[in-house]
């Protein structure tokens, strides 16, 4: 049983709950037992890819015609929550595959490209990545340098991307580049001449995720691999999908550290009593419980807004910003409650705490989301 202070379960449908429970069992049996060793080694558990595919974790919202499950936003969110209860790296893998690769292909690629890529991405024979960020353009992707030039048979792509999740593993990269000064998307296939994707090493966070550079040197991209979308709204529409999943995902990590804190505080005896009997410890547990419960309500509501076509990007900024923030703070409090044990890999605390630092930065930093909301309130953009 997981934290459900407000009986939100009464609002979730039967299949939404079943998806959550099924993914939770999957995470308990397949991810938790192996994740610490991959975190230490700095490797992504590749064995999980076919298993996740079999579970239907790739293409959750993608239409069944292309091998997806055709589920709704809330189901997608709950699946991400359970994956991130396991580890943010595994959730990141699924976010990229679902929201940043399969979503734009289904939304913006030709019928032929959909048929070529979506079934393979759904069954895990293909891995995808999403290249937006560049060494010199992070929060300000509109300034990107990577560019494409029209040729007789297609396009010539040049430039570099950085911090790309799954880059080295990917069979297909959704790459955003400027064509005649306007941002557009391209599907770059593994093996394309001039395309390389070296892995970036030395991360102290999201260690079980592969992060890479993408380098394009005169890559010839066929005409049909271009996505039918222009402007920053192309990549931003993908990020909206992913950020929604991240808002649910952060709750998964927060619940993992909260559950561990409740158990630990009830069994750890100091001064002859469980530490749970001390007011300062109770206050920390109450803070976590309250913030997670508020985050759950907000995420639930935004899911329903999405499903009714009423979600605005600002709603998504709100839940991404809020839920990742309270998850990090929960991990911090959990660290205190666990005392010295809080730094050990026997407990999931430090791993989640460190992972969430990446989650706070990617998909729009905490501060950038603050400014998006600030602009929404005041009508004044503080970031441009």
């Amino acid at each position, binding site marked *: 049983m997981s934290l459900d202070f407000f009986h939100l379960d009464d609002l979730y449908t039967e*299949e939404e709950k079943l998806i959550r429970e099924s993914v939770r069992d999957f995470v308990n049996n397949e991810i938790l037992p192996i994740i610490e060793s991959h975190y230490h080694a700095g490797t992504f558990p590749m064995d999980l890819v076919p298993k996740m595919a079999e579970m239907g974790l790739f293409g959750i919202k993608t239409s069944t015609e292309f091998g997806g499950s055709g589920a709704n936003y809330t189901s997608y969110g709950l699946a991400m929550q359970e994956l991130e209860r396991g580890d943010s790296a595994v959730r990141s893998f699924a976010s990229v595959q679902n929201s940043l690769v399969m979503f734009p292909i289904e939304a913006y690629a030709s019928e032929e490209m959909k048929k070529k890529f979506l079934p393979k991405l759904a069954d895990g024979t293909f891995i995808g990545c999403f290249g937006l960020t560049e060494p010199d353009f992070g929060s300000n992707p509109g300034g990107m340098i990577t560019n494409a030039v029209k040729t007789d048979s297609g396009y010539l792509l040049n430039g570099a991307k950085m911090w790309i999740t799954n880059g080295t593993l990917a069979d297909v990269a959704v790459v955003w580049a400027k064509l005649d000064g306007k941002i557009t998307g391209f599907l770059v296939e593994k093996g394309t001449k001039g395309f390389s994707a070296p892995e970036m090493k030395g991360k102290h966070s999201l260690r079980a995720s592969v992060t890479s550079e993408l380098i394009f040197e005169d890559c010839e991209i066929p005409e049909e691999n271009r996505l039918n979308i222009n402007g920053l709204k192309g990549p931003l529409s993908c990020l909206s999908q992913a950020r929604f999943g991240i808002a649910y995902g952060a709750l998964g990590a927060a619940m993992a550290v909260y559950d561990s804190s409740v158990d630990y505080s009830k069994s750890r005896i100091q001064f002859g009593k469980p530490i749970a009997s001390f007011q300062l410890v109770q206050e920390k547990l109450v803070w976590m419980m309250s913030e997670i419960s508020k985050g759950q309500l907000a995420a639930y509501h935004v899911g329903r807004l999405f499903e009714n076509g009423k979600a605005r990007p600002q709603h998504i900024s709100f839940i991404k910003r809020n839920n990742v923030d309270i998850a990090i703070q929960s991990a911090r409090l959990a660290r205190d409650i666990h005392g010295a044990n809080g730094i050990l890999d026997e407990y999931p605390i430090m791993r989640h705490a460190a992972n969430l630092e990446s989650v706070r930065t990617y998909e729009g930093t905490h501060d950038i989301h603050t400014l998006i909301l600030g602009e929404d309130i005041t009508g004044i953009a503080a970031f441009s």
Partner: protein
Amino acid sequence: MNILVCISRVPDTASRIIVASGGKTIDNTGIKFVVNPYDEIAIEEGLRLREKNGGTVTCVVLGTEVSKDILRTALAMGVDKAVIIKTADDNYDSYFTAENLANYAKTLNPDIILLGKQSVDYDSLQMPSTLGELLNMPSVSVVTKLTIEGTNVTAEREVEGGKEVISSTLPCIISAQKGLNDPRYPKLPDIMKAKSKPIEEVAAIEVAARVEIVGLEMPSKKRIGKLVTDSEVDIAEIVKLLHEEAKVI
């Protein structure tokens, strides 16, 4: 192969159980109900038998409308047909359940009936044997390994310090114990498909109750021990208590 799996809906074992006012039922508020864990093993075994021998797996539950949720789980795991024997309320005993399941089984005429060795709510452990009696079928309980060749059935059970091998023939009843298999996770596409699959409803037949729940009580929280020190006064007190209360000296 015509396979029938009987399942029940029980509170998740991690739920906090509270006795409802009236003192005869539990308070369902905030409790998560799931497929009885041993029944999940029975479903899995049914699916494996179908995968090997062909045929259909029918899953049946007895209960009120709310019990349909666990049939969705069974459909998502891959059973072909889901049936609810509908009761008006939750006030019935094991015999009522057994008579109703037997009544339904007669209409289906299955080659094998699978069910969990017990439901983890009331833990009565009656269904496999009572069904065997009512249907006049061999019933093997607490099975950890099942092999079926033609109509020959070999079932293994764990007994203290060893294992027991039982042979029987179809049609028969098998109740599942942990270790028989690892139940599969319902997959997302199958969960989505299960949503639109039909659930057949049959009305429960009336069976007079043989057992009545008189009352439910929470385990007592009273401290059993008494704290004493090694002072002269307390030592005298201990001697007195051992003599008068515990009556051991």
